[in-house]
């Protein structure tokens, strides 16, 4: 987390707020509810209270503004800059301005007012932008499931550094962003996509370009706002230019209509509830699915499962146990299991070597 230069903070713990105007994009009651919940994000973790007033000057004045609105920080139309807020202080201090030209919503379409308001209130209370991509105070917008929202630990640490701990008997905790070179890091799914490698873990996604040493970590929702966290398997169908993802018994395909579908439509028996890992061989057009200690092979040309499957993973790939994630690269198959990955040569049917799961990140 990062605090605003000079560490400005409110001198009192009981603050007032006022909603000056509302966006026509949402019902007034929904605007009020989104903003109330945004305040609760912070009041849940520090000893601050926020009381809504209808008239007069409040500590934090919230409004929807259009283009140049007289504070030296104009908006420029849809997208780009969504909102801004001022650090704690008198008059304009603490105030929050939303760009009226954005499409504000209470869901994943357009920009979610609750998410943006909660972020801006972080500034109103004294937080600057955090470089932690999983934090609420990261500068870029990313949709998060608002029903499952928990303030990330980075933000909790930041706001408690200013106002102290919550008065609750049990201190609240939040999710932490995984460290890229954590030796215990495992992945939910790994796949290639148009020359890049994508590593999924919870609500996070690492993007690795083979020619670039640095690895980017972002929230999955930054790239696919409607995609759920906790993707369990993924593969790229190079020929169809499709990216296929699995969670539970659901198949999702990026940019293709007619999805989600059920995994049983691929030919799995009803007893299969989820797929642990998948990869597709672009040369043979065969896709391999790993489920518990077995694997299936699917023919992308015939659109059906090959006969003779499932087979035991151990019979072909050796004693590696459950496979968490899999992908193919330069002719080799990489099977991820826990914090390790096994490099397998499909031609010699031999294990080449066992690596750390994070070896792709140059750790």
């Amino acid at each position, binding site marked *: 987390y990062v605090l605003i*230069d000079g560490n400005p903070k409110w001198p009192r713990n009981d603050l007032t707020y006022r909603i000056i105007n509302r966006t026509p994009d949402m019902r007034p009651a929904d605007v009020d509810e989104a903003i109330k919940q945004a305040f609760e994000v912070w009041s849940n973790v520090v000893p601050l209270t926020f009381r809504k007033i209808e008239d007069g000057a409040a500590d934090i004045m919230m409004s929807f503004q259009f283009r140049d609105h007289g504070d030296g920080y104009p908006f420029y139309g849809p997208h780009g800059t969504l909102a801004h807020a001022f650090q704690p202080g008198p008059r304009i201090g603490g105030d929050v301005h939303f760009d009226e030209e954005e499409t504000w919503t209470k869901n994943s379409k357009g920009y979610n007012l609750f998410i943006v308001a909660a972020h801006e209130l972080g500034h109103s209370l004294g937080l*600057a932008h955090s470089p932690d991509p999983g934090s609420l105070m990261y500068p870029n917008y990313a949709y998060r499931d608002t029903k499952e929202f928990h303030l990330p630990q980075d933000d909790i640490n930041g706001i408690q550094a200013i106002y102290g701990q919550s008065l609750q008997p049990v201190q609240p905790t939040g999710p932490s962003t995984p460290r890229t070179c954590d030796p215990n890091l495992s992945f939910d799914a790994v796949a290639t996509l148009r020359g890049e490698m994508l590593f999924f873990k919870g609500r996070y996604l690492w993007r690795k370009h083979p020619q670039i040493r640095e690895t980017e970590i972002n929230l999955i929702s930054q790239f696919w706002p409607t995609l759920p966290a906790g993707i369990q398997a993924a593969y790229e169908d190079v020929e169809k230019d499709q990216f296929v993802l699995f969670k539970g018994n659901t198949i999702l395909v990026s940019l293709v209509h007619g999805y989600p579908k059920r995994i049983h439509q691929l030919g799995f028996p009803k007893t299969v509830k989820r797929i642990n890992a998948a990869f597709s061989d672009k040369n043979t057009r065969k896709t391999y699915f790993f489920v518990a200690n077995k694997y299936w092979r699917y023919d992308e040309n015939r659109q059906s499962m090959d006969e003779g499957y499932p087979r035991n993973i151990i019979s072909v790939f050796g004693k590696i146990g459950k496979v968490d994630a899999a992908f193919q690269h330069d002719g080799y198959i990489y099977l991820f299991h826990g914090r390790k990955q096994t490099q397998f040569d499909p031609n010699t049917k031999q294990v080449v070597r066992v690596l750390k799961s994070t070896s792709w990140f140059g750790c």
Partner: protein
Amino acid sequence: APLAPEVDTMMLAEGYLRNFYGLETELHPSFKRKITDSVSEKLKKMQSFFGLKVTGKLNNETVEMMKQPRCGVPDIGE
């Protein structure tokens, strides 16, 4: 007439660095070299903040990051 893509990208970058990284571009034309140096320094700060490869040059990853919707508050103190 529409701007050439590279001009468009340079304008996007200058606007971004001015708004969020304190780039000052209101200098006399004879200080053009100084502006270029300043852009490079600010780009490095921005790339470092977002965990991108720090080159001081406007590459695809940096432009992609600049195009994302975001908060209007600067990333470095004012």
